[in-house]
């Protein structure tokens, strides 16, 4: 195993890297896999279930075996395919899934128990005793099976997302993709070309072929240079287009730093959403292997991969290489190896046909026709293969070709179901392709170089025609059409004898350790549909999604069921084509940036006062303002309530939704949207409003203030601000578009403060410029547009959520922070204090006001005691259906208050009410507690809740039961208005 040539690798520079702690060197242009092979490291991992020694199997994204860990600490990435990991200086890689050491894996004992571990074994074997499954069997199985391990630390790298737009997206840059891109680029259309590899050219770099008279890799390099010079073409390498979505949207993952290791300055990966009017899928084909006994030893490799290592990386993956093929393409591996002076020990063709190539250069190679491999030897590396003719050929590498599968995946992401093509013994794209997609090259079953180049060129011509983009795109590049005949050979039907029989296994899916026996067992057990076989055997699952095994597996399935392969069909192809980190989907939306944060206008001032904040939707609201010496939040909140109720408190209530409603039909519009009537509201007055959903349940509540005949300002709850606005726009545009009314959400435009407490009038009078705020001139439920603080425009409302004499004062948002500071400053002698969301909540519970806890989507106007608000004289949203039997029933739960019989008891929201003498079971449930608070005004806990016939049960006792916490206590049913039920305070 050695470098036999430069290939496309820069051997003038060394790159040092480590594998399992051992130091190696490779070169720029190497993958980890090619560098490991160049250093003679054949054994690179252990298999999923049986812990069999495994080596590098492919040279691309399809790799099932060579999964390694890259990096260290929090930057440790498991399950990286060594075949696509670009080598860089200092790269640290490690093998996976062993205990002890890679060479001497203690878990390899599993392999000895193989006859017991067939597909589905754990469903049958670990049935008894039942309790052992969760505690013993499953942890044990999970420990012994599996791939790499996560670092279990937060991902320290940065990721990003973005959008790209194109007339034409070309996916893949093999012969078809480059021919398509060249034609498209020359046309002047806006083109994006994506290549998963770091080197563009695909198989052009893996073969000794010629295009337009030059070496294929040279033609690729020249074409890429030409494309990069075109201003209308965006060339993206290291970019996997992993999904085709609706309407020509594609997902693509660009790896920015994975080939150089961590860089502080850059996002590691970028998730692109590409919108393309047309697309060309030129994703090539993936070679498959053949199921024959012991076909998983390190050194057994796909024939095309052997050519890639030889021609692109200059590495011979063995010193004595045998070739095993059922098609013409496999022979080219032998020819290329011989041309590079690597010994070819045998070419075994399963077909009994003359060699498709000139074999004179193959030296002493044994050429066998119509034969199969029935045995291989070599524990950590292949040593020989034995044929059914009895001949044994010494080999340290076996190049296998079972044919090529077009990479149809992206063509199937929108319901496309591939069709079987007998001549290439594989599936090609068919059915409903993603809108605007054309298929070119090997992805469409055009397996020869000349045909691939022509089909790429033609696909661009068709795409441009569909785009009505007329341009001369010239002639397609020319190349020969090499032989690529195939006669399928899926698996070797070899009956091993005696003891060996149980251990004789032919692998189908190397990554999941699925053998041909597992597939036939699945059929025996009744799982005959292809999707069932996948789930029963795990064939085609995990990181490679069966790229080298699926078609082989379903061919074996077809044989076992007696169906044809097209009748058996494929499993459904879903995104992603190759694994995509969740972190890339998240992009920058992590941690604090996970979603936007909304600050209230007085946020900065609240911060300066040491406020504690809480999330309320996207908003951060001040929860309380602790003072030095206060040791618990309750102490702070109790003080805020007491000081507000005895002096004056101010609270930022900007988060409440505000909607400006204007127009000649504004009043009529609100009459239809709200359950109660607003057309009768006098200018300069505010009214409480209740909004129903069309199904008759309560939707939201708030107030509407009338500033003129044609101008209202309505408020919504914080949580429903967006939904109510959307609903009102629906009513305006979809139900009554003839009405002259317009809506603007002004939630962020106005900073609004509640000013509550007996001294609130005095404080407000110090703020307003000219407005008379006496009780006579500005009574309860008055409103006015005015100015404060020498000319600042303001809106003043005399409304109260706290039950105190109270106002709400709104100013343009930019004045909010200053006004908050000013009110606390100028009201110091009045005892002015800021209060937070918690105190606001305590005071509203003391007054029995409903909020989100009570308006939970299951409550009617009647439930919250506002049944009479629903006008019987007019149509409004929800009016009719609020009369449904179930919603109008007399025994519905009603909102009432609760106080503990034992005043020291702490009430809890969520407890359920059960009458005395009844069992605590669901059938006896009579209601539940929605909100609780400690009332500093009353000196004990109080609660709100729903109770059947609650309004008629005042003064009764009921049990509050909390089976979750094992608590139960007695509460007395009372009015929800705990404080000042007559409302004298707020009218003072």
């Amino acid at each position, binding site marked *: 195993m050695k470098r036999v040539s430069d290939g496309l690798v820069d051997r003038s520079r060394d790159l040092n890297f480590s594998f399992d702690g051992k130091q190696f060197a490779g070169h720029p242009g190497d993958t980890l896999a090619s560098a490991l092979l160049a250093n003679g490291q054949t054994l690179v991992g252990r298999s999923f279930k049986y812990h069999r020694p495994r080596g590098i199997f492919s040279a691309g994204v399809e790799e099932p075996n060579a999964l390694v860990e890259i990096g260290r600490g929090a930057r440790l990435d498991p399950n990286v395919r060594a075949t696509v990991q670009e080598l860089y200086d200092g790269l640290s890689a490690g093998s996976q899934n062993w205990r002890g050491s890679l060479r001497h894996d203690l878990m390899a004992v599993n392999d000895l128990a193989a006859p017991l571990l067939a597909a589905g074994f754990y469903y049958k074997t670990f049935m008894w005793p039942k309790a052992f499954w969760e505690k013993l069997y499953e942890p044990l199985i999970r420990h012994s099976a599996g791939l790499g391990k996560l670092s279990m630390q937060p991902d320290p790298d940065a990721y990003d997302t973005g959008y790209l737009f194109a007339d034409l997206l070309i996916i893949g840059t093999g012969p078809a993709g480059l021919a398509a891109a060249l034609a498209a680029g020359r046309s002047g259309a806006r083109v994006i070309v994506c290549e998963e590899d770091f080197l563009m050219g695909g198989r052009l770099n893996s073969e000794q072929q010629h295009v337009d008279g030059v070496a294929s890799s040279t033609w690729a390099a020249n074409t890429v240079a030409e494309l990069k010079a075109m201003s209308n073409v965006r060339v993206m390498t290291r970019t996997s287009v992993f999904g085709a979505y609706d309407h020509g949207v594609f997902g693509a993952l660009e790896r920015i730093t994975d080939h150089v290791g961590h860089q502080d300055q850059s996002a590691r990966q970028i998730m692109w959403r590409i919108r393309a009017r047309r697309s060309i899928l030129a994703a090539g084909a993936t070679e498959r292997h053949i199921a024959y006994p012991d076909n998983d030893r390190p050194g057994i490799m796909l024939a095309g991969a052997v050519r890639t290592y030889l021609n692109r990386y200059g590495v011979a993956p063995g010193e004595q290489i045998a070739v095993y093929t059922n098609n013409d393409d496999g022979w080219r591996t032998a020819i290329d190896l011989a041309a590079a002076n690597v010994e070819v020990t045998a070419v075994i063709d399963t077909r009994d046909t003359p060699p498709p190539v000139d074999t004179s250069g193959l030296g002493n190679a044994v050429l066998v026709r119509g034969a199969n491999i029935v045995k291989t030897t070599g524990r950590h590396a292949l040593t020989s293969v034995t044929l059914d003719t009895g001949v044994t050929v010494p080999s340290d590498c076996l190049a296998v070709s079972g044919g090529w599968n077009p990479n149809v995946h992206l063509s199937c992401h929108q319901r496309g179901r591939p069709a079987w093509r007998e001549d290439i013994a594989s599936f090609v794209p068919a059915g409903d392709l993603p809108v605007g997609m054309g298929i070119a090259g090997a992805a469409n079953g055009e397996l020869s170089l000349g045909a691939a180049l022509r089909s790429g060129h033609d696909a661009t011509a068709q795409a441009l025609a569909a785009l009505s983009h007329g341009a001369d795109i010239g002639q397609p590049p020319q190349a020969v059409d090499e032989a690529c005949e195939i006669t399928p050979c899926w698996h070797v039907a070899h009956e091993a004898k005696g003891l060996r029989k149980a251990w004789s296994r032919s692998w189908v899916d190397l990554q999941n350790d699925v053998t041909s026996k597992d597939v036939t067992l699945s059929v025996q057990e009744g799982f005959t549909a292809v999707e069932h076989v996948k789930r029963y055997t795990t064939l085609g699952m995990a990181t490679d999604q069966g790229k080298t095994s699926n078609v082989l597996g379903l061919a074996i399935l077809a044989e076992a069921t007696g169906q044809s392969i097209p009748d058996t069909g494929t499993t459904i192809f879903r995104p992603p084509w190759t694994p995509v980190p969740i972190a890339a989907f998240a992009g920058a939306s992590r941690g604090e940036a996970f979603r936007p944060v909304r600050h209230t206008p007085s946020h900065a001032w609240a911060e300066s006062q040491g406020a504690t904040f809480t999330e309320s939707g996207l908003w951060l609201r001040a929860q309380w303002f602790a003072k030095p010496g206060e040791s618990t939040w309750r102490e702070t909140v109790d003080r805020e309530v007491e000081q507000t109720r005895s002096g004056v408190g101010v609270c930022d209530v900007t988060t409440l939704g505000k909607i400006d409603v204007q127009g000649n039909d504004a009043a009529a519009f609100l009459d239809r949207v709200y359950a109660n009537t607003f057309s009768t509201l006098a200018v300069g007055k505010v009214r409480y409003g209740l909004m129903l959903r069309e199904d008759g349940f309560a939707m939201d509540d708030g107030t509407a203030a009338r500033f003129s005949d044609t101008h209202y300002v309505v408020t919504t709850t914080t949580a429903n601000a967006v939904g109510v606005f959307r609903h009102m726009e629906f009513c305006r545009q979809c139900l009554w578009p003839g009405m002259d009314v317009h809506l603007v959400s002004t939630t962020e435009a106005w900073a609004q403060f509640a000013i509550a407490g007996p001294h609130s009038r005095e404080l407000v009078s110090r703020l307003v410029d000219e407005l008379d705020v006496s009780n006579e001139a500005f009574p309860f439920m008055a409103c006015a547009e005015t100015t404060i603080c020498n000319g600042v425009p303001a809106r003043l409302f005399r409304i109260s959520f706290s039950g105190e004499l109270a106002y709400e004062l709104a100013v343009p948002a930019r004045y909010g922070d200053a006004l908050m500071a000013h009110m606390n400053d100028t009201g110091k002698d009045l005892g002015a204090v800021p209060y937070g969301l918690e105190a606001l909540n305590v005071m509203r519970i003391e007054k029995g006001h409903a909020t989100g806890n009570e308006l939970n989507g299951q409550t009617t106007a009647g439930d919250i005691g506002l049944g009479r608000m629903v006008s019987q004289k007019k149509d409004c949203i929800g009016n*009719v259906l*609020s009369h449904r039997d179930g919603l109008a029933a007399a025994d519905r739960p009603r909102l009432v208050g609760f106080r503990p019989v034992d005043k020291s008891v702490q009430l809890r929201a969520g407890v359920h009410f059960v009458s005395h003498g009844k069992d605590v079971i669901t059938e006896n449930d009579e209601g539940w507690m929605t909100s609780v608070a400690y009332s500093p005004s009353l000196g004990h806990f109080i609660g709100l809740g729903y109770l059947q016939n609650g309004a008629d049960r005042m003064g009764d006792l009921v049990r509050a039961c909390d089976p979750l916490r094992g608590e139960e206590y007695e509460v007395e049913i009372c009015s929800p208005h705990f404080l000042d039920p007559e409302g004298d305070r707020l009218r003072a």
Partner: protein
Amino acid sequence: MQIPHPLLGLRDASEFVYLGDASLLQRPEVPEGADMGDSVLLDAFHEYLHLRDNPAGEHRELWFHEQGDRSWLVVTRNTTTHEITDCVLARDLVSR
């Protein structure tokens, strides 16, 4: 998905909020002075609000351009292919 907004052109579906069947545009008429609990009215509203066709194929449905111009749109979308064949302002449809 992308929605061809009649005023703003092709916009990404993530800018929109989906509501449902465009039959919601046909809210039953409530006659002046009607008894709100009338069983004929109740049936009409029940049908309007709850009984929907669930076609495999062309479906007219309401989308709200919440992250855009706040217009309600009626989009004709094939539920089996997501192909969008028509998109109009809901208010134009109702006013007609």
